[in-house]
């Protein structure tokens, strides 16, 4: 029987995963919106880790660049990669100690905590849907895809986009790139 995959559960499991603990990701880093990719016909999920730092001011919480990546195969949840992006060539000019933006960014400022949470949960559901569909378990319609794209573009910090693009072009262009608006009525 195929077990349904859920991002929330994966994230929870991760916290007690031996490999993960050994990666020693410093305290203060949290997982951003995961990237999905296919590697040798296996579905993988990559959790980018980044740091937020409060300043005491509303909407001025500092956002730092994505620093680490944890790669996991699905649905086994086996960790198959860990990377510290500080050592990747294309990031060599990035100062990981310099904030790149603020939380909350403009697109989400108009939502209160509850509304934000609703959107966030909806996005997680879309993630679950696409993952499960790709694993042969359920459907993921074009409307789902469009909605997921929409949600990601609202929720993700714009300052992180270039990192997402550098890490995974396919995911970036499928879900994050605003340039491609040609789908319409």
């Amino acid at each position, binding site marked *: 029987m195929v077990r349904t995959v859920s991002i929330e559960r994966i994230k929870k499991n991760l916290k007690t995963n031996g490999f993960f603990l050994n990666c020693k990701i410093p305290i203060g880093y949290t997982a951003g919106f995961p990237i*999905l*990719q*296919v590697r*040798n*016909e*296996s*579905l993988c999920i990559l959790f980018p880790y980044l740091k937020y730092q409060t300043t005491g001011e509303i909407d001025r919480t500092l956002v730092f660049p994505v620093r680490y990546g944890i790669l996991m195969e*699905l*649905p*086994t949840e086996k960790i198959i990669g860990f990377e510290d992006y500080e050592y990747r*060539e*294309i990031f060599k*000019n990035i100062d990981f100690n310099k904030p790149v933006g603020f939380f909350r960014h403009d697109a989400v400022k108009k939502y209160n905590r509850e509304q934000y949470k609703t959107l966030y949960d909806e996005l997680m559901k879309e993630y679950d849907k*696409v993952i499960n*569909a*790709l*694993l*042969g378990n359920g*459907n*993921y*319609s*074009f*409307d*789902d*895809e*469009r909605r997921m*794209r929409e949600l990601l573009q609202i929720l993700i910090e714009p300052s992180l986009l270039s990192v997402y693009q550098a890490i*995974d*072009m*396919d*995911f970036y*262009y*499928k879900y994050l*790139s605003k*340039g*491609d*608006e*040609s*789908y*319409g*009525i």
Partner: protein
Amino acid sequence: MAYKVKDPEFFKKRLKEADQTTEEEGASGEKEKTTPFRAKPLNISTAVDSVLTDTIKLLYEVEYAKMAEEIEKLRENAVRERFTIAVVGEFSRGKTTFLNQLFEREFLPVSNLPTTAVLTRIRHDSDEKIEVFDEKNKKNQERELSMESWEDLTVQNFGGEDFDGEVLVKIHSELLLHSNLEFIDTPGAGDLDETRAKGIGDVLLGCDGAVIVISATSPLSLSEKLFIEERLIARKLPFLLLIITKLDMIPPEERAGVVQYVVNKLKQWKLDIPVYIPYDIEWSETTYDNITGMDKVKGEFARWIANPLRMALHETWVMEKTLDIVNHVSSSLTERKLLAEERDQAKQEALISEKKQKLARAQLVWGDLRIQMQRKCTECCKLLLSQADVYAAAITERLQYEVSHANHLEKWWTEDFPYRVKIELTNMAVGINSAALSQIENDARWYRAKIKQTFQSYILYQRQAIVDKTLFGNFDPGRDIEFENLDRQRTAFKIGSAVLSISGCALFSALGFLPIAATMGVGTGAAIFSEKFFGRKIEAQREELKKEIARCVPLFIRNSMEESERRLEAVYRNMIDEAHKSEQAWLNAQQASIDNICIQKDGQNAKIQEFLAKLQWQTDTIQSLLIQEDKDESESYHE
């Protein structure tokens, strides 16, 4: 690996053709192996399509993803551009009935009184509904697709008030879906209501074709002739057909006679328009079997869509733009190669920083050009306004002269005067239009030359739409986002208007003098004929009318100039926007070459060399196709 993913290419596919694929096929369907996100190319040939596809692939390979996407977008737009057909005619001729019959369902309101009050656009959508847009093109309502929804949208319920908005009817229709067709039902034009007629004139500019509806019970009046000539032929609307309705209402033995009459009249007026009878009716003879029936009408539509000239326009348009982009990439790659060849690290860095500076400066130059162009727009407006003043004075003088020689003052004022104003304004329209045209042409040429000279890129304005379909709707720069989609589709990169510009009348109609001048409400108040007025001597009466002429002629002209100014601005804005797109492409390419140099690796140079060769080949292919198009086009001109 136990779990193979369903669709390994999933993340490589972009969301595009949502309405072409059903939910079940969704994201993981096996059926999608062959490029599921591509629309069937209706408007471009497979040869051109494959060149585009190759180019897109190549650009992704060279890691110019942004540029590749640009071309994808262009292709998408060329492919998806709708073919818009307006149904026009005087009121109660059966326009709406025809559409109901065409779609084989009663979804639009019909009655024997003037009915249709708003422009009604009909498009395919599996989610059927009626959307009401206000005069600012802002969607303000969604309604169910049912007869009740029309209650306040028909003439009877408008209480004389004008509604300048538009209604979009989304119906599920295979006919529309597979042909990219869109229909527009128009309120009855003609003598009914001049302001409404004006709206129709505007809409026709954004159309590719028109169905003229006339009724067998009153076939081809003079005003219908004028309508056809002024609004359709003068605009060089490329595709026209005429249908005769209500033949069932006259005795069978007279039917052929009516059709014959219409055909003869058209011939006599030298109007080459095919005639159809859309509904199967009883004939006393078989002469007209070949033009009877809805399938014949549909056949004509199909021929319109497949018209090679139309396809050629789409192709030229998309390929010129593509070539533009490919050229950008080539030059950027060449630069990358030069930079990479520079072995000395310090020198290389110096080159890069120099390039960055240049880029920053270039951005300023682009901005400056934009401002200059805006200034030219203002100047052009001023020029036209001053010309209009001259015309106003001349026209006033002529009309005053006429009134001073007229005997039946009331008759002259109510009958001759409106007619004379129409004529005068039409003449003025022609004069001012051609002045505008040459001014705009000059400015466009200047703009292009400047850009070309400064950025050495290919900005092609020749056949590029200077005119935008959005000009035809109500123009509002701060458009609501909700309308964006609808609008983007309608604009669809202005191919439809390229049809107009190829026929050499783009600007002529874009400025919209003719429709306004010809349809303006010139039936001025008869209120002037009060008892007091008739109490005076004829000379005094004449003086009174002269005063009135001096008052209202400039007013008419000012009104029509306001509209024209708005359009003129839109034309310029459009050129500026087009250039802005080029600017973005140019900047992207430049930026990409800077970015990519930072991740330059050994052995890349050979690869770049290879890509450059491939790009060159691609350029040659496109160019040869373009030359082919040019030839085809000029040939069909001479037909």
